[in-house]
């Protein structure tokens, strides 16, 4: 039987067995990794998995079973087990899904050069080229530890439920991550950064691939050579770059807007949300300069998709609109509980994981200013372009971002004075309320967003304007 037939059979069998709702999701997932340390390969691998995840609703509960045995009997057994597990949950409050339009469709990432068409030697050599360029560009002692990770993934998905929805998708994502340790005259600094695109191998062939890594390396070297500890007795104006704006959009807005957290479903793991205490659609959580959008439909983006893993059409979600909490991220389960429609936020990393509400590409919307205009209006402040350590509490309210590349602004100009490890330790509300302007520029970082148990690390973009200005910020940390 083909996977189409198996999925169809599983649905019909689940219906016959009395499932109130049943869905089957086939995923074939090809992953490749090429990893080097200081110019030498230390690991590489290529793994293909395929299987079917089954989610069944019965007696108000949910059962989930996955199988790698793609045969009729195994699918029947798995469907039966999923229904039995759902029934044994003995829920007092029945779980239901939101009503959504039935669709039958296909979508795919536009790929010029599929990863499978490129020899593994070529892929490895591309990673080694990066290291070679780093060694040629910098003194040998500048970066004593250089770890480069190239990851390629291709997915075929086929989703069907007993409401009649069928969605078939082909995805392709290439990404890299670099961990650099710089030894400079002022000490060592570490930096991890990542980029990615939903394209094929063509993305790695662009000249920007290596150039952007060298650019980042220059920044880390500059910090290790120049950054000094500084203390400020008074609040200062702060401009953060796209990388910092992106992590803020993701952590301080995206996560708290996830409806499953707000409803308590992630209470054990990723936690709940301060959005439990506000009225979405009415409560101000930032200044009018702040609009935060999560949009899966951006072509070539790291979190790109057109239909989610419950077969719901994707669309941009305006999480904060001009400072007002505007919209949560819903899958059909959270939407059903809230009595609203899903906004297509349901994602699962593979066939063996349940779909849950996730971000895709989350960003602070660009404003009307040029970057220079943002800086020109600052008498004394800081430009924080990148960060190292970060964390946030499980209600997503108390956040901390330690700056890496950070320079003093004096009289409307960025100076050559580097600040060592400045700390933004702010509440989500305190941070967004301090924003008074955003620039027109836009840039993105590839990231893997972690959530749930068992973990589901899912590709996303964190992005934003190249300048977000915050007024009168008290830097944190302890001397």
């Amino acid at each position: 039987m083909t996977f189409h037939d198996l999925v169809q059979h599983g649905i019909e069998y689940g219906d016959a067995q009395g499932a109130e709702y049943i869905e089957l999701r086939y995923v074939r997932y090809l992953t490749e990794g090429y990893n080097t340390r200081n110019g030498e390969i230390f690991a590489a691998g290529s793994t293909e998995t395929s299987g079917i995840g089954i989610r069944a609703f019965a007696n108000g509960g949910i059962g989930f079973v996955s199988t790698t045995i793609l045969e009729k009997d195994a699918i029947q057994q798995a469907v039966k087990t999923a229904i039995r597990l759902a029934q044994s949950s003995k829920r007092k409050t029945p779980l239901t899904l939101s009503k959504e339009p039935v669709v039958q469709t296909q979508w795919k990432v536009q790929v010029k050069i599929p990863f499978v068409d490129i020899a593994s030697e070529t892929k490895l050599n591309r990673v080694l080229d990066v290291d070679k360029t780093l060694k040629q560009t910098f003194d040998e002692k500048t970066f004593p530890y250089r770890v480069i990770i190239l990851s390629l993934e291709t997915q075929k998905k086929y989703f069907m439920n007993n409401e009649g929805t069928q969605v078939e998708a082909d995805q392709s994502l290439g990404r890299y991550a670099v961990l650099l340790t710089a030894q400079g005259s002022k000490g060592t600094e570490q930096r991890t950064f990542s980029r990615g695109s939903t394209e094929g191998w063509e993305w790695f062939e662009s000249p920007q691939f290596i150039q952007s890594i060298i650019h980042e390396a220059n920044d880390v070297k500059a910090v290790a050579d120049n950054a000094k500890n500084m203390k400020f007795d008074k609040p200062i104006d702060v401009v953060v770059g796209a990388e910092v704006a992106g992590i803020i959009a993701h952590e301080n807005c995206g996560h708290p807007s996830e409806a499953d957290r707000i409803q308590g479903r992630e209470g054990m793991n990723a936690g709940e949300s301060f959005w439990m205490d506000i009225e979405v659609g009415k409560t101000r959580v930032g200044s009018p300069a702040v609009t935060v959008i999560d949009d899966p439909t951006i072509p070539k983006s790291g979190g790109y998709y057109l239909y989610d893993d419950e077969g719901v059409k994707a669309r941009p979600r305006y999480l904060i609109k001009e400072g007002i909490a505007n919209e949560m991220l819903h899958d059909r389960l959270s939407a059903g509980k809230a009595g609203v429609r899903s906004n297509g936020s349901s994602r699962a990393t593979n066939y063996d994981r349940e779909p849950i509400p996730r971000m895709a590409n989350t960003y602070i919307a660009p404003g009307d200013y040029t970057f220079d205009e943002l800086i020109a209006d600052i008498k004394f402040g800081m430009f924080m372009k990148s960060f190292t350590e970060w964390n946030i509490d499980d209600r997503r309210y108390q956040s901390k971002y330690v700056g890496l590349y950070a320079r003093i602004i004096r009289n409307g100009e960025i100076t050559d004075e580097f600040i060592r490890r400045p700390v933004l330790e702010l509440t989500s509300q305190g941070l967004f309320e301090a924003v008074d302007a955003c620039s027109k520029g836009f840039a993105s970082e590839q990231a893997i967003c972690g959530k749930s148990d068992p973990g589901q690390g899912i590709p996303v973009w964190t992005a934003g304007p190249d300048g977000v200005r915050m007024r009168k910020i008290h830097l944190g940390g302890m001397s």
Partner: protein
Amino acid sequence: MTGKEELGTMIDQALKIASAEGEAIVRGRNVLEHQIRISNSEIDIFKQWEYTVLEVFVAIEGRIGTTEIFNPSPKVITKEIGHLKKFVKSLQPTPLFQGLQEDIKPPTKVETLYDKRIRDFPDQAPDVVMAALNAAQKSGAKRTAGSFFFDETHVMLKTSQGFSGAFPESSYRITLRSFVDPESSGQGIAVGRTLGNVERTITYAGKESGEIASLAVDGKQGKAGKYDLVLHPTVAASILGELAGSANPLLFLMGMSPLKDKLGEKIGPDLLQIWDDGRMPNGLGSAPFDFEGTPTQRSSIITNGKLEGLVHNASTARMQQTKSTGNCQLVKFSLGTKLVVPAPTNIVFSKGDASFEELLEPQRPTIYVTSNWYLRYTSQLEGTFSTIPRDGMFLIKNGEIGQPVQKLRIADNLLRMLANVEAMGKEPRQVRWWEVDTPTFIPFVRIKDVPMTAATQ
């Protein structure tokens, strides 16, 4: 599930093809795993995963690679290992591979690894969970969330160097988090290998989560400053276990450990003894042998405060002219890639002589921290980090748990915190949950002069 004999036959076939031109390891695992997820004191979803997988490592002239074969059959094994070998030959030799374990010894005897009653446990599990939720409610919880895993795995491993071994294992782990209100919560965890006292341990986790949540009500914003901290085993495992886990030559090579160049140095007080122990009874990281077939053992990491040893597999041991400590593991590194490298099994801290009450005896301003998450680094090389307490956190007053405080962050350095350990409790617990991957046996710990920070606005 594939039968034991059939699994052995498939492993033999895979090993023959994989080792035809070099060295190889094939591990077969038959896995049956369940999870119950809970929120708002009800079961949200009940999951099952059942699969057979062959994990294959191949080394050909210093070039290495790994793959996984799910639902293996003779045809699929031939195809997938053929692909792997072609892939490996296209790579370059890696200096991190120095050959597999040649010294074949009998596996270690490990107590309390398997309980066959786990097979029928799915039928009882929802009731056991409900008993724990009731215990939480009786302790004051208004609602409880949780995650309960239980599993059974049959492991068989063969290497090209002649090792052959097999063992069954079972385990459970539950984390329960109770809430009285959104800002007043408490956590309890329970882990084990056998089901003899599962209901008691899980019910205790529920009770502890409810008690901490109840004590946490009316928490006030904490004041930033330096405090002595009394760490619940859950927190001690996250912070001190993180440092012990970085006694790993692989992390040294990548600039990801603050212990590099510290071997032989005194880095903590005399009372600190830390081991890696792959034989620990009831330990979730225990096994008779590692991924190369080396018998597991107890290895000293820190003795009387001195960094005495690292965890090794055969390759890193050869690089440092020593012997494998039985710590070779197959570790996921990046997409599609697993590493055959040293990794901790169970991290075990020695117990001290202080009761919980004695740990609370006031010396300086003291805070009791019951749980934490999000340990992140500014520099892994230095050990500079911060982590966020979550759930109940309390000021200590007159030797007793006092005013609950909130919204503080531990911002310190791992080496400094280890050096500042003042006292260890008498009763170690095994910790393994979402935030602590390596099973860690550790008691309550008191650490002096820890910087705590708070949001500035």
